[in-house]
């Protein structure tokens, strides 16, 4: 053989190896090529050394190179088998727990990010300071109607009260507002919810004021307004230096003194900003709301959410006023209480929506071991333990996600959404549990219809599902009968294992090392 033909043949062999190398996954290709290149060098020197004219030797080298394709395919298959656990992940107990954990994380993150949810505040048990009641007239069925006249407020405040040691008044009106935005210049709105409140309002209710400026507090030449956080974010671009700016309410100028955090304080009326006025400025006008702080005696007497209050007028000619004291805490059920209530309701409603049985009936008198049963109950408990916080946070997301909802609306939304999600979640947890193999907790698959519905009374018909791990078969009757009313599990013995070789259980080793003979 001439050197040129020899060189061409060598290039051909290298070409075969290079072609085969493309079948090898990229990560292993370099090492695979290195090994086969080295082996080819030795094979060439052993079978067809340079200058040799043996056709048999050349043929052997070519046959050796063709074997590289089988090796490359083998490595490719091995890589797929390594990736098989990802396929086994589908429907496994770990995947279920991971998905629920992801849903919980997502709902919690949304609760933190959504404007209006105020997760930190809503989660706080002290969103409404205790010891406050809202006083209203008993003649009104609607709790949110303003019923107390300024003169009543002034009269109560001036008299020494055994049950109350402080009063605050406010009334909400829709007023045109003009303001200067740092980014967009002069702005105007035809109607904001303006609460004209007594100057002690925030002090009495011990509500925090953000971004307050002591210099502005000290300056007394202009009325002060406190922005709600929603308006501050929406109209003032969440400017932290907003304190000191001037807004115009109708014909009156007022200076911004701070921002009140949004929250469910149990106060009726949708308020965008609070205008703090001296008592003299609110001595007349329309009715409003009165908030009173209870003394120790008052707290001991008014421990119920709603307490009737009788006011003896100093003028004996006037009749007594029949009023009602509504606790601010009772006025706004906190989200946690709503959640617990809806969970209770969902647990009551659950048996009406699905069977509460876990469907662990075996065809024969087979009982899984204690550890398996504990594992199954632990899995169910983990699912429920993850579902409940998902219900809580997602209902908060829905109820408090929009700042346009008032407190009452948000409470109703949370009530409905929490109940619905909780009922659905618990229902799903039970149905999912019934569909999981009692041995490996993997969801059974490959449903097969068995029998004919028309022969229900002569023979069994229904659906059979199979555990992918080869542990069990699940028989679900198509039409429950007196002799086959519930689903039943058939536990498979070791003789079935060969059917599930390579499925992550049982007999993998035999399948892996049981090479076929050449």
């Amino acid at each position: 053989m001439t050197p040129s033909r020899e060189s061409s043949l060598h290039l051909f062999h290298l070409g075969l190896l290079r072609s085969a190398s493309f079948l090898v996954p990229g990560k292993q290709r370099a090492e695979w090529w290195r090994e086969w290149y080295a082996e080819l060098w030795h094979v060439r020197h052993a079978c067809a050394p340079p200058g040799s004219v043996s056709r048999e030797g050349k043929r052997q080298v070519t046959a050796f190179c063709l074997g590289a394709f089988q090796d490359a395919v083998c490595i490719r298959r091995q890589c797929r088998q390594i990736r098989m656990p990802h396929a086994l992940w589908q429907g496994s107990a770990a995947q279920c727990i991971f998905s629920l954990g992801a849903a919980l994380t997502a709902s919690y993150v949304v609760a933190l990010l959504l404007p209006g949810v105020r997760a930190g505040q809503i989660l706080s048990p002290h969103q409404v300071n205790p010891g406050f009641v809202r006083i209203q007239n008993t003649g009104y069925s609607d709790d949110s109607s303003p019923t107390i006249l300024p003169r009543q407020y002034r009269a109560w405040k001036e008299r020494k009260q055994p049950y109350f040691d402080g009063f605050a008044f406010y009334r909400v009106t829709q007023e045109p507002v003009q303001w200067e935005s740092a980014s967009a210049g002069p702005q105007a709105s035809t109607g904001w919810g303006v609460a004209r409140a007594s100057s002690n309002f925030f002090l009495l209710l011990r509500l925090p004021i953000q971004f307050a400026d002591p210099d502005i507090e000290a300056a007394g030449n202009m009325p002060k307004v406190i922005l709600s956080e929603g308006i501050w974010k929406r109209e003032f671009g969440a400017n932290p230096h907003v304190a000191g700016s001037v807004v115009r309410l109708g014909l009156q100028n007022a200076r911004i003194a701070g921002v009140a955090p949004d929250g469910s304080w149990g106060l009726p009326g949708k308020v965008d900003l609070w205008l703090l006025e001296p008592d003299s400025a609110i001595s007349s006008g329309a009715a409003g709301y009165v908030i009173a702080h209870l003394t120790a005696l008052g707290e001991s007497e008014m421990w119920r959410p709603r307490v009737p209050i009788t006011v003896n007028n100093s003028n004996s000619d006037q009749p007594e006023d029949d009023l009602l004291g509504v606790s601010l805490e009772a006025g706004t059920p906190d989200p946690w209480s709503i959640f617990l209530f809806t969970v209770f309701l969902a647990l009551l409603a659950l048996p009406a929506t699905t069977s509460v049985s876990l469907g662990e009936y075996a065809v024969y008198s087979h009982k899984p071991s204690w550890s398996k049963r504990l594992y199954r109950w632990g899995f169910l408990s983990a699912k429920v333990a993850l579902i409940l916080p998902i219900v809580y946070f997602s209902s908060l997301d829905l109820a408090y996600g929009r700042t346009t909802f008032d407190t009452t609306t948000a409470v109703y939304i949370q009530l409905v959404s929490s109940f619905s999600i909780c009922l659905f979640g618990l229902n799903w947890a039970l149905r999912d549990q019934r569909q999981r193999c009692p041995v490996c907790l993997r969801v059974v698959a490959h449903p097969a219809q068995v029998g004919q519905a028309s022969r229900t009374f002569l023979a069994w018909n229904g659906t059979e599902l199979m555990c992918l791990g080869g542990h069990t078969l699940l028989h679900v009757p198509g039409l429950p009968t007196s002799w086959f009313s519930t689903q039943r599990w058939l536990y498979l013995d070791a003789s079935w294992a060969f059917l599930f070789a390579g499925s992550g259980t049982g007999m993998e080793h035999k399948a892996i090392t049981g090479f076929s003979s050449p």
Partner: protein
Amino acid sequence: MASETKLSHTAAMILQALDAGFVYGFSIMEMTGLPSGTVYPAMRRLERDELIRSHWERQSIADAEQRPARKYYELTKAGKATLQASRKRYPLLERLIPSEEAKSV
């Protein structure tokens, strides 16, 4: 892997060849008469099952002999145990590839 794992005859032959001292693919091919398309894939599986392990020859040795470095294989502890079990199953295994053969390679 358990020592009682049942190997195919091919896999047992390859283990026996390695035990006899044929430590790279081509020498196993020559010793067993199996084609490259059988020997190398079988060694991949044996290595994956941790019955054998591989290592690269030092480059300096290969350079000294003016040839590319090659990959050597050897039995693991599990591989030796499995081979012992396979010898009981295939009594002729040791006769096919006696350990003395390696000394002549």
